[in-house]
Each structure stands twice: as C-alpha cells, then as structure tokens.
C-alpha cells in the first residue's frame, strides 16, 4: 500500500488504497492515544502551523493535539485577528509563513479552493482543514474510520447523509470517500439544500426522511447553519425538525444496528433529538472525536514521510 500525495487538499485526488493506508495507520494511533504515554516521534523536529481563517474549536484542537502527540512544534495562528484584517492577501500571508520554513501547514478558510491556492505557493505539505463549501478531507477520513471500526468494513454499506448537503464541505468529502470505497449513498434533505447536478454524483436523493432511512446501516447527520434557518432555504426551524430532525421514530426505519453520526457541533432539537445523540447504543459521536485525532496523526505522519523522502529544495 502506498501513499503518494504531497498535500491533503481533498478526498477527490486520493486513491482507495491511499485512503486505506491512512485508516490502517490511524488504527494504530487510536491504540497509542489510549495508552498512558501517548507520545510518538514521527514528526519530531518538524514545524506545524495551524492557520485558521474561520472559527473552529474542535478541528483546531484536534490538529494541535495530533501534532503534539507526534512530537512536532505546533504553532496556532488565529487569522481572523491578524494581518488579514489589515488587507493582506492570502498569498502574502502564506509567503510570510513560508519564510519560517514550516513543514506542515493546516489551513481552514471560508473560500472554496483556498487550500489549493496556498499549496501552489508554499514549499511545505498543506492539509485542508475545511475550505468554504469545497472539502473537509480529515472529517471524511475520521468518519470512515469510525464506520469501519463500528461496522467491521467500509464497503457495501447503505449510508444516508442527511440535512444541508448544499452548503456542506463535510458532505462533499464524505460522498467522494464513501463512493470511492463502493458504498451505496443516499442523500436526504429538502430540495433547497441539495446541490445542483447532484443526480450525477452516483447517489440516491430523498426528500422524505423515513423513506431515505429505510434499512440504512449508517445515518450521518449534518449541522444546519443558523443563518440558513429562517425563510431562505427552509420555512422554519420547527418545520425542519419535524420533517428532517433525527428522532427515535425516524431512526426506527433504519437497520436495527444502524449507527448515528454527527460532525458537531450539534443543534439539539434542530437536526437531532438530544436524547438520541447521547444514546451510547446508537450514537458514535464521541468516537468520531477520538478518531479525529488519530486520523490527523496518520495523515500528517504519511505526508511527513513523503516530505522527508524528497530532497530539501528550500534550505539553500
């Protein structure tokens, strides 16, 4: 099994065996994370910069912890507060950071394609931690690892992704990944929250949630952004909860052993019933957080191996 990527910009460029390589290594890091001594030295001597142009608590903490457990020097930059406010362009900021010779650059940005743009301009490995509505590859990988561990496999499963597909980078990355691994994907949500051209993604689309959940093995819920709630895309929060909020009744249409996932943070009572989210027999939401750290350790480890294998081009 080989991992040939220089960056992790999205799921789209990955081969199925590269996805498996990340997940296999992540499995080992899950065990490491459960030990008292959680340290490894795969990233020792390397510098990791987290550049977050958008608010994030979970993802940033997860990347930070992943880097630290592997021995990297980790620096967090909250970009909303910095020179971006003073009119500096993304490229200028990147060039400034590039001069500090980082090895791994973790980027979250509100614009689709921002990570691709950065990757063209810097010398280090770039990890996309979410760009606009484009991709969020580590989220899809951690979801995949969670499913694989809960279901024992990552192929030939019936998986429903529910909610605001149109504005979700998590949904895009998940559709791409689960499709590459040969699963049957259903998208469930109101037509106003479905992206254009969705028919050609190789998915089944449902606007009736009970029919959409019929017999599925995995139910992935998506967060509904507050600003989409009133009037523009859906009539109201309560009508949305009535038709698309996951509760015990709707879940009863899924397979008996179906698992419930959510990328967080949850809107309890909007897209998911609070009791259900906490039901340890169905919900794997806490596992997702744990898998997140492991998957990010694995991704950075593999990228660093490729980095070390290349002759240094910037040191001169």
């Amino acid at each position: 099994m080989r991992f040939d990527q220089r960056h992790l910009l999205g799921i789209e460029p990955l081969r199925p065996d590269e996805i498996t390589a990340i997940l296999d290594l992540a499995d080992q890091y899950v065990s490491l994370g459960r030990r008292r001594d959680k340290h490894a030295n795969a990233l020792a001597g390397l510098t990791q910069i987290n550049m977050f142009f958008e608010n994030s608590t979970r993802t940033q903490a997860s990347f930070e912890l992943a880097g630290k457990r592997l021995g990297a020097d980790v620096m967090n930059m909250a970009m909303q507060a910095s020179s971006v406010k003073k009119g500096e362009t993304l490229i200028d900021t990147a060039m400034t950071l590039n001069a500090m010779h980082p090895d791994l650059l973790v980027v979250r940005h509100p614009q689709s394609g921002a990570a691709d743009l950065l990757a063209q301009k810097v010398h280090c490995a770039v990890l996309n931690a979410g760009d606009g509505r484009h991709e969020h590859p580590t989220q899809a990988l951690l979801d995949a690892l969670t499913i694989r561990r809960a279901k024992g496999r990552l192929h030939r499963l019936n998986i429903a992704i529910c909610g605001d597909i149109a504005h979700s980078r998590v949904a895009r990355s998940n559709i791409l990944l689960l499709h590459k691994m040969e699963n049957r994907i259903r998208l469930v949500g109101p037509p106003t929250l479905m992206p254009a051209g969705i028919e050609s993604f190789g998915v089944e689309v449902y606007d009736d949630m009970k029919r959409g959940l019929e017999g599925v093995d995995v139910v992935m819920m998506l967060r509904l952004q507050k600003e989409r709630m009133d009037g523009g895309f859906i009539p109201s929060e309560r009508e949305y909860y009535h038709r698309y909020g996951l509760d015990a009744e709707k879940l009863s249409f899924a397979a008996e052993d179906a698992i419930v996932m959510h990328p967080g943070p949850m809107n309890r009572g909007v897209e998911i019933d609070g009791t259900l989210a906490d039901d340890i027999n169905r919900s794997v939401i806490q596992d997702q957080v744990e898998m997140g750290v492991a998957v990010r350790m694995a991704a950075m480890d593999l990228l660093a191996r490729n980095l070390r294998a290349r002759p240094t081009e910037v040191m001169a």
Partner: protein
Amino acid sequence: MTDILIQNARLIDPEAGTENPGTVLISGGRIAEVMREDGPTGAVLQKRAGKAELVDAEGAVLAPGIVDIGVKIGEPGERHKESYGTAGLAAAAGGVTTIVTRPDTTPAIDTPETLEFIRRRANEAAPVNVLPMAALTKARAGREMTEIGFLMDAGAVAFTDCDNVVSNTKVLSRAMTYARSLGALVMGHPQEPILSSGAAVTSGKFASLRGLPAVTAMAERMALDRDIALIEMTGVRYHADQITTARALPALERAKRNGLDITAGTSMHHLTLNEMDVADYRTFFKVKPPLRSEDDRQAVIEAIRTGLIDIIGSFHTPQDEESKRLPYEEAASGAVGLETLLPVLLRLYHSGELDLPTLFRALSLNPARRLGLECGRLSKGAPADLVLFDPDKPFVLDRFKLQSKSKNTPFDGARLQGKVLRSYVAGKEVFKSS
C-alpha cells in the same frame, strides 16, 4: 501615402461567403481593386498599381480587419491594467483593426466630457480605430438615463451598462424608448441580476464538486426574455453582448423571426472553453458570464455557423496579477483577448467546425454592419482595414510576450495555430510580424 499591392493571397470575402486566391490593391486608404485569380489577370492590376509597394502574401489569408465590440481599457481609472497605447498594440498584433470600448471604467463613461477625453486619448495613443460605447444610465447605477443624444453627438456608437444589468424595468423601458427616438443601439448583458449575483461558475456537477457559488444557465434565458419583451414594446435597436447557453437560443431565434431589431454576440472563451477548464480553481478562466457546459459550447458554435448569433468578440478584460491571485470566488473576472482572439478561434477552423468566411462574418462584417461602419468587407471602395495571417503556423502561447499590460489569458502555454503577419488600418501598416 503609397499604394500597396498584396499579391498571392487567399481572399476571404465574408459578404459573399467566399474564399479565393487573388490580389488586392490599396490606394488612398481604401481598397481600390480586388482581383480574384479566376477574374481578369493580375497584369491589369500591375499596370494600375504603378509604383505601389508590393507585398507577396505567399498564400497567406487576407481578410477584413476584426471589429471587436466590448473591449475594456483601463482608462480612466485603471491605467496600470491597460492603456490605449498597449491595447492598441495588442489589437494591431491580433488583427483587430477597430476596438469598440466598454464604458465600465472608473468613473464610468457616462458624460460627453469623459467620452471626449477617451476619444482624444485613443486617437493619440492607439494605432487602430477606437470607437467608444457609453453608459446607458448615469454611473451605470440603473437609475437615470445618460445624455444619450449628446453622447451620440460626441461619438458614442452604442449604449450599455455592461455587467451592471439594469434591474429596474421601468428605468430600462424609458431609456430604451428614448434611445429608440434617436436610433441609438442599446447593448444588453442578459443575466438575471439577482439569480446571478455572487456567482462564480455555472451551476451543475462541477460547481457542486468545487463548492463554488453558482448561477443556473437559465438566468441568461430569463434576462433575454425580459429584454425581448422590452424590445417589442419600445422598438429599440438591441444587441445582446454575449449569448452563451443553449437554452437562450430558441428565444433569440423567435425574436429574430418576429422581425425585432435584435442581434447577439458571444465570446471567444465560450466558443473554445467549457466549465471543466476551471479545473483546480484556475482564476484565469473566471469570466463573465461564467464558462458553460460542453453542450452549451457546441450549441453556441452551431449558432455562429447558422448566423443566429451574429458576432464574436474577445471581451478583452485586463486584470493585474493581484486581482487574480485570490481564492476563486474573490478573484476578478475577465481575460485579455485582443491578441489571442484570432489564433484561438482558428481552433474552430482547424477542427472543421467553422470555415473562414463564416468566422470573418462574425468577427468583421456583422459587427461593422451593426454599428453602421463601412469596414468589415473585402470589396472595392471599403476602408483598407485588413489582416494578413498564416492560419497554419503553430506556436505555443507565452502570456508574458503579449502586448497588453495585463497578462491574464487562460491560453498561457496553449498550442495554437495561426499567426498574424500584417495588419492595416486605412491602408497603413500598423503591425508586421518579426
């Protein structure tokens, strides 16, 4: 001015739709004689030519110079992106002998005074003909019409708010009614403004994969339908700047069949590229309206072939590196095209989709006719605005070798065929390839 005799050329006559070997004599800035090889022999011409300068075309193509409607030049306001001088050089090198400029400058060209400034600058700096268009409403804000009469007196050849679509239909209908009384040509940009606001790409699978804000192709049809109703209501002379989707074509066809005074254009980019070319967020491919599906591209080529779409333009839009080196959604729209227009469109000739007389009907004859210009023809008495080019010569485009100040072309590194050898404006050689 000495006469010029261009011999041994392939003559493209878009009026007759023919292509013949022959000879052209230029005298006093006009085409004095056109001799086809199958007509009276060149000896007659030789005698008439007397001491004319002889140009042996060596079998290259001689066609009426291109009339490019919708060229953006950075004056006033953005001279660092393009000046009349650099645009003029680019045009001459591209076989464009008449530039018809857009008024979407800073400030907008919306008064006779700014228009006169433009004309003075253009005449000083550009070696080709420059004809300005003016804004239809003040500051292109869509609220009050400009001084259409005064602007026409000052030389405005058409009126347009460019990509600021006049969304207030009452304002537009009044401006059109007033324009109609003066016989002014109004150029529209058929894009439903609210649907298309903020869009960076055409909606569909590609847009969804890239997670970019998108506009449905239907927004073009909707806006065209509205404008057609207004043309019917007001009787205005109307030109749609760019028709780029298959869905808009039946509406255009019906309007023409019903005898409305409507013509339509399209851009070189929509004829040769599609939405997939954006690939990994390549901002040099961001144009307005956005690139369309391959089906749309094919339909637009067919519409040029049948003449349903009348005119092809470059929609030359210079942008500096800074405004393009941004995330796709934030990056500026537009591409330079004056110099690449001909070689890029020759792709359609080499692929057998369009012949040269059809291409020059859309590039030279039709735009000249629509603006009431004498040029655009290869016949006796017409102004000697001509382009001589080798349609087969291959080259790889290097954007840094373009004459424009801005280098934002999507065709950087593209393998193209077709090189302009010489350009003439009113019988004067304004470009000769080295």
